[in-house]
C-alpha cells in the first residue's frame, strides 16, 4: 500500500541485497573462492545501475545471485521485497518471469534458430503466437538481424550472437533487466543503438536495468547510478555524475580516467613535455559555474600563451564535465601569477614534469 507521501517514501527497493556472501567450494586441491564478500546493494524500481570493476571482481556472480541462478552462501536477496533464498523453484519462476538477462557468454540455444532463441521467453511467458511473431520481427529489425532470422547460432559472428542475446532478454519486456557485458562484442554503431534502446525502455516502460560493463562510456551515457566492485566487495557507489566527478577509490579513478581524460599518465606526460615547452596545469571544469573564456582571458591578459595538450569536455547526464591540461608558456613569473589567478576561478592542479 502506498501512502499519500508518494511511492518513493515507502516503496521497497526492487532489488535489495543485505550482507550477501558467495563462496565457491574448493575444487580438488584448491582453496574456496570467495567471489562475493558482504555486499549490500539496493536498486530502486526505474533505476539504471551500472556495475564496474576489474575482471574477476565478482560482477557476474552478483547479478546471477539476483535472479537466483546462483544461491547465496549467506545474506539476504530480496526482489520486490520478497526473500528469494526461501523460495521454491515454482515461486522463483514467477520472480524470474519478470527478469531478463543478457549473459556474458551469450548462452544461446544451439538447437534453435535466431528466431527460435528470441521466441523462447515469449513461449515461456505464454504470449499469443501472433503477438510473438510481431515482437520477434520487431526485435530482429532492431538488432539488425532480420536477414539472419533463420540462421543457426553457429553461423553467426560474435557480435551477431550478442545481439541475439540482447533481443532474447528484451523479448518479454521484463521489468528488471540484468545485462552482463551486453555490448562488449558490438561495434560502436550497434552499441549506441542498443544503449539508446535501453534508455528508451527505461524511460518509456520504466524498466529497471542493472548493467555490468567495462566501458565507462556505457555507464556515462546510460546509468543513473554506478557501483564499483573490487575483490567481491562494493567499494564505491553513487550517482554517476558524483562518482565521475569525484572518484574516491583508486579503482574508480582508474575507470573514470578512461572516459574523462583525467590527466596524462607519466608516460604520456613525458611525451607531451618533449613536444610542448612550458608548465603544465590541469583545470577541472564542472557544470556551468565557470566560463572557460574567462580563464583563457586571464591567461592571455598576463601574456601567458597556452596549448590545450590533453583532455576535453564531456557530457555526463547533461552536465558539462571536463579536465583540460594546458601547457603554459611565457615569462616564468607571469606563468606563476597566472596559475594563481586561474586557481581562483577553477580547481587547478600543477603537473610536475
Amino acid at each position, binding site marked *: 500500500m502506498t501512502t499519500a507521501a508518494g511511492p518513493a517514501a515507502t516503496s521497497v527497493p526492487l532489488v535489495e541485497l543485505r550482507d550477501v556472501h558467495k563462496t565457491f567450494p574448493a575444487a580438488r586441491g584448491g582453496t574456496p573462492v570467495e567471489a562475493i564478500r558482504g555486499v549490500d546493494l539496493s536498486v530502486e524500481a526505474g533505476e539504471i545501475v551500472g556495475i564496474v570493476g576489474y575482471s574477476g571482481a565478482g560482477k557476474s556472480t552478483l547479478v546471477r545471485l539476483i*535472479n537466483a*541462478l546462483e544461491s547465496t552462501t549467506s545474506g539476504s536477496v530480496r526482489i520486490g521485497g520478497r526473500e528469494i533464498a526461501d523460495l521454491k523453484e515454482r515461486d522463483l*519462476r514467477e520472480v524470474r518471469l519478470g*527478469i531478463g538477462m543478457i549473459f556474458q557468454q551469450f*548462452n544461446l*540455444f544451439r538447437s534453435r534458430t535466431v528466431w527460435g532463441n528470441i521466441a523462447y521467453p515469449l513461449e515461456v*511467458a505464454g504470449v499469443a503466437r501472433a503477438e510473438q511473431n510481431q515482437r520477434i520481427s520487431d526485435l530482429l529489425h532492431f538488432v539488425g538481424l532480420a536477414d539472419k532470422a533463420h540462421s543457426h547460432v553457429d553461423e553467426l559472428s560474435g557480435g551477431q550472437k550478442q545481439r541475439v542475446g540482447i533481443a*532474447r532478454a528484451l523479448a518479454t519486456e521484463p521489468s528488471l533487466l540484468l545485462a552482463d557485458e551486453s555490448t562488449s562484442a558490438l561495434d560502436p554503431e550497434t552499441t549506441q543503438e542498443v544503449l539508446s534502446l535501453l534508455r528508451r525502455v527505461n524511460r518509456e516502460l520504466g524498466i529497471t536495468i542493472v548493467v555490468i560493463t567495462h566501458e565507462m562510456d556505457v555507464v556515462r551515457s546510460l546509468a543513473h547510478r554506478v557501483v564499483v566492485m573490487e575483490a567481491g566487495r562494493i567499494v564505491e557507489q553513487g550517482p554517476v555524475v558524483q562518482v565521475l566527478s569525484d572518484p574516491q577509490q583508486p579503482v574508480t579513478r582508474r575507470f573514470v580516467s578512461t572516459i574523462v581524460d583525467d590527466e596524462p599518465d607519466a608516460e604520456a606526460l613525458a611525451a607531451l613535455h618533449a613536444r610542448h615547452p612550458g608548465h603544465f596545469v590541469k583545470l577541472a571544469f564542472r557544470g556551468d559555474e565557470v566560463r572557460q573564456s574567462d580563464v583563457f582571458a586571464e591567461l592571455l591578459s598576463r601574456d601567458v600563451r597556452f596549448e590545450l595538450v590533453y583532455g576535453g569536455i564531456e557530457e555526463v547526464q547533461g552536465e558539462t564535465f571536463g579536465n583540460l591540461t594546458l601547457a603554459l608558456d611565457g615569462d616564468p613569473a607571469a606563468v606563476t601569477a597566472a596559475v594563481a589567478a586561474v586557481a581562483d576561478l577553477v580547481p587547478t592542479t600543477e603537473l610536475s614534469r
Partner: protein
Amino acid sequence: MNLDTNIGELWPLVWQGAYETLYIVAITLTLGGILGLLLGLALYVTRRGGLYASRATNLVLNVVVNFFRPIPFVIFIAAVQPLARVVVGTGIGNPAIIFALTLAAAFGISRIVEQSLVTVDPGVIEAARSVGASRLHIIRTVVLPEALGPLVLGYTFIFVALVDMSAIAGVIGGGGLGNFALQYGYRQFDAVVTWTAVVIIVALVQVVQLAGNVAARRIMRR
C-alpha cells in the same frame, strides 16, 4: 562345409521373419525408448547440480538400473515371464519377447540417454531458467533438443543392439529373422540360409544406421 540348402523353400519364412523382426524391434524401440528416455532423464536430472538434484533418488535409480542390466538375458526373460503373463497375457511368443526386450531396452537406453544429456552446456539451461521456464518445460524444450544429435546416434545404436538381441526371441517361441537364421540356418548347418538371413538383417541395419547418421549430422550441423 555342406552347401546343400533349403533356402528355396524357406523364402516365405524369410520375409515373415523380416517382418517380425521389424515389428518386434519397432515396438520395442518405441516403448522401451519412451521408458528409457524417462528413466534416463530421471538419472540425469537427479545428478548433483541437476534440475531436480537429489542424491538419494539418483542413488536408488542407479542401483535399480544396475540391477536389471547385467542379468543374463535368458534369465531376465524367464524372470519377467510371470509379469508378461499379467501384462501381455502370455509368457511365450512375440508378445512376451517384446515385453522382455522392452524392459531390457529401457534400462540400456536410460544409460545412453543419460550419457547424451550430460553433454548439454549448463549455460543454456541457465538461460532457460533465467526466463522463468519450469523445469519440465526446460527438459522438453532445451535439454532434449540440445542433446538431440547424440540422442539420435544413441537410439540408432540401441536399434542395432535390439535387432541383435531380438534373435534370442526363439527361446520363448518368438520369431524374427535372427531366430530364423539360428533355427533354419545355423542349427541346421545350412550356411546359405544363415547368411541370407544375416545379410538381410545387415541390410536393414545399414539403412537405419545411415539414416541415423544423416539425421544426427543435420541436427548438429557438424
